């Protein structure tokens, strides 16, 4: 399912959006937790809550797209290596990898879109936490 994305959804297809949603939400919470000091400092130097929200959105979107591109690049590399051996070494592993990784562009980009959309609830939660960080926190925690 992970390799094939939405192209060949199995009976357990619903599990993967839940996992993606959970990972995205935990990640957003971790950002707002570990960036508490930075957010408080930025508020001290005149950042508003909407400015902080843009920062969080930017970080989450950049990380999501970067992760997607890294996986895409790895897939291309693995596919290239397996294709090199196809015909010369027809082992079950090569055949399985070829079938597993080959995926058309449409489902791949829909998967990326869903990953980004699934970040939204986590981002709302992260923003809620960030809104409640007072600028004084930066001074008190030093």
């Amino acid at each position, binding site marked *: 399912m992970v390799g094939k994305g939405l192209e060949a959804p199995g009976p357990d297809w619903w599990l993967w959006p839940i996992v993606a949603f959970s990972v995205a939400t935990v990640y957003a919470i971790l950002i707002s937790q570990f960036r508490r000091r930075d957010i408080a400092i930025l508020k*001290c130097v*005149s950042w508003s*809550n909407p400015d902080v929200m843009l920062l969080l959105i930017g970080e989450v979107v950049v990380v999501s797209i970067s992760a997607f591109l890294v996986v895409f690049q790895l897939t291309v590399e693995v596919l290239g290596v397996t294709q090199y051996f196809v015909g010369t070494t027809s082992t079950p592993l090569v055949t399985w990898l070829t079938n597993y990784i080959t995926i058309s562009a449409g489902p791949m980009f829909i998967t990326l879109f869903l990953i980004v959309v699934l970040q939204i609830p986590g981002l709302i939660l992260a923003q809620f936490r960030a809104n409640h960080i007072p600028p004084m926190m930066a001074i008190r925690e030093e």
Partner: protein
Amino acid sequence: MANPIIQVQGVNKEYGRGKKTVAALKDINIEIMPGEFVAVVGPSGCGKSTLLHVMAGLEAPTSGRILLDGVDVTLISERDMPKVRAQKIGFVFQAFLLIEDLTAFENIEAVLWPSLELKKEKEEAMALEVLREVDMLERKDHFPRQMSGGEQQRVAIARALVNNPPILFCDEPTGNLDSKTGETVMKIIASLNKDRKMTVVLVTHNEELVKYAKRILRMKDGAIVGESKSRQE
């Protein structure tokens, strides 16, 4: 005659609730004129840092009014306060408060990022200009962990200047520095008061630093107990 740039009127600040309240500030009244260099001195725990935080709008007073350049910051919502901070206030902290993952240049530029009307080139030029002013241009690509305490404080001063605010609040700016480095930092702050005509409010427990100020306010137990002019005047 010019109007005061900072007016503190009957300000009280209490921490805690019910019977367990601690009065950190008691009926503080101060007027500071544009271009003044005021030092607030007193022993640890006397409320001088609280006074600075309240004046800068970082904390709300329990009662009383604070006017910065005619704007009553006690009436301003948390949503609008960032605009006031950006336009009127620069803050230098004892612990520098630089973002560890950003370089000196980025720490300064970050102040300008929310100003969407500024072009990137203009932001960079403004950040470089203030770095030059505190003699830190050569260290612009260094991260805070790669700089000494004095260098970090100079970057923090540059950050406070980049918006060109009329008021500079300094909370024990030499507290984490050795005496020689502290002297260098204080000379920079004094030059900002002299050359840029910035209003400087310095909070310190170090009596040696009051020589830079033109006016000295003494605090004890949350109240102003004395006021004097600097001997250098």
